[in-house]
């Protein structure tokens, strides 16, 4: 069972205060650590677990700048056999659908039984690539997947719906699954794995190698165009309690007392 996992490098923003860069179309990434998109990390782990039980190899595939090779190397350190980077500036600024087309072209000639992606990207908030990729490849899909059981020529998956309801489906192979966080416990790479992966080769693909013309990919080939980034309107928002931690906490304790909570 050979599995391709599509991964993306993203800036870690959950705990950070963000700034919008000059030009208004990107954030200031300086000072933000770069890491694998969190759902992609769960997708990689799921692929490694499946190949441990059912043989086969894991290939990691990314579309991104040279820095994203770090994510590929870390994936190889954990057990991925091969890595491919779609490495061509013409892919910059592509939306989810354009990215799916590029990834599908990169999979030409790669043998796979299953393709896993994260179900969502934490940077652009999109939930498009996996589902669109399946359509471009002409194979079935499911996303928001929190359970995968491999059967004979098919997988039984659980999709997480609103309220935690699970929808069980049987999907024939090959297929694309968008993996949700929490499906497993992602492993850490060993020191020895990291050392070995640092010497491994990463295949590079440019648009020409993939038979894609420059105007069909990246920003030019996207149906949506990013115009401007702004901070969300503040709205009414919270009454902020100022002061040192004891001062602010003192004010909050008084409010909680007034309201009868303490």
């Amino acid at each position, binding site marked *: 069972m050979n599995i391709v996992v599509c991964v993306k490098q993203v800036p870690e923003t959950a705990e950070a205060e963000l700034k919008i860069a000059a030009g208004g179309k990107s954030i200031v990434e300086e000072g933000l650590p770069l890491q694998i998109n969190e759902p992609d990390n769960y997708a990689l782990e799921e692929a490694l677990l499946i190949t441990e039980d059912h043989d086969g190899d894991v290939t990691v595939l990314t579309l991104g700048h040279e820095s994203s090779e770090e994510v590929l190397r870390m994936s190889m350190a954990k057990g991925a056999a091969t890595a491919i980077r779609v490495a061509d500036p013409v892919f910059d600024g592509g939306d989810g659908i354009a990215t799916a087309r590029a990834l599908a072209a990169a999979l030409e000639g790669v043998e796979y039984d299953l393709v896993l992606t994260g179900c969502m990207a934490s940077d652009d908030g999109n939930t498009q690539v996996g589902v669109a990729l399946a359509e471009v490849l002409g194979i079935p899909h499911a996303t928001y997947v929190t359970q995968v059981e491999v059967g004979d020529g098919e997988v039984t998956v659980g999709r997480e719906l609103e309220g935690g309801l699970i929808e069980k*489906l049987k999907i024939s192979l090959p297929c694309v699954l968008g993996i949700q966080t929490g499906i497993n416990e992602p492993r850490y790479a060993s020191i020895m794995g990291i050392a070995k992966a640092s010497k491994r080769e990463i295949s590079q693909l440019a648009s020409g190698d993939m038979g894609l013309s420059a105007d069909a990919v990246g920003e030019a080939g*996207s149906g949506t165009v990013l115009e401007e980034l702004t901070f*969300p309107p503040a709205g009414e928002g*919270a009454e902020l309690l100022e002061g040192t*931690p004891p001062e602010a906490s003192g004010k909050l304790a008084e409010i909680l007392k007034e309201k009868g909570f303490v």
Partner: protein
Amino acid sequence: MNEILVLAEHRNGELTDITFEMLGKAGELAGAGGATVAALLLGAGVGEMAQKLTGYADEVLTVDHGNLTSFNSAVYQPIVAEVVKSRGPSMVLIGNTAFGVDLAPSLAVELDAPLASDVVGIVVDGDTFSVTRQIYEGKIDARVSFREAPTVLATVRAAAFPVEPGTKSGSVTEFAATVPEEPAMRRFVEYVEAAVGDVDISASEVIVAVGRGIKEEENMALVEELAELLGGVVGCSRPIVDAGWLPKDRQVGSSGKTVKPKLYVAVGISGQFQHLSGMKAAETIVAINKDPKAPIFSAADYGIVGDLFKIVPALKDKIAEVRA
């Protein structure tokens, strides 16, 4: 502008809120462009729901067939594509729900139509739509336009738009679509309800909820103590369940529990919309977070910006003081 088509969503025979939220917005946009709103309703035995939709859409298109009993994007997609090709709407709105995100991207590829996901705002200028999306976990708004196309698609975030009273009196039309059999490549098996644990957080009047900011499992005691002091229970956002530090039934948010306690204290939770949608109806909301721009502060009544590892211990002391 041609019509705006809204894909109705329903569960257990009931239309969901997102359907009416999208129809309200569609009505506003269509009204500005002298166009009409059509609702597309797929399912088995949809007559009653179709009647309800006539208050919110100029035309309700139904495809009523036994193969549409459960949602399966592999069955829905060719039907929605056929309707779009036949009607040529200027815009199609689909919920950014577990249902919609499993359908919209593949539909967009099939139709070769632009797609914007998870939109929270839509404006129209003449025939040109642009949308607002939230990126970086709700911390940044992105204004996005579409390349020129006969039809553009958008998936709409739940609760982004209000439900307006239905003032239309639309007609119901049965759309003669080719309804495929459920394909062998993707078959529905069953729905499984979420497991029920020992604590029902939705029954508690006080919830102290913890998020990613708590950093390590060993720090969880901090919020457990605060919850105990306030006579409440501990809830959490998704990352805590993903890490295995609390069971799924403690998760507050769209894929977890919806709660309405008297007091909700959010500790180290940035407040992505999936979380906010599960707790914003709480009577009093307190947020403690180190990022002053975290979306949780927009939902909260009271906030403290700072290091939770300093604030929570100080707060425990102060609560003990005011109680004494």
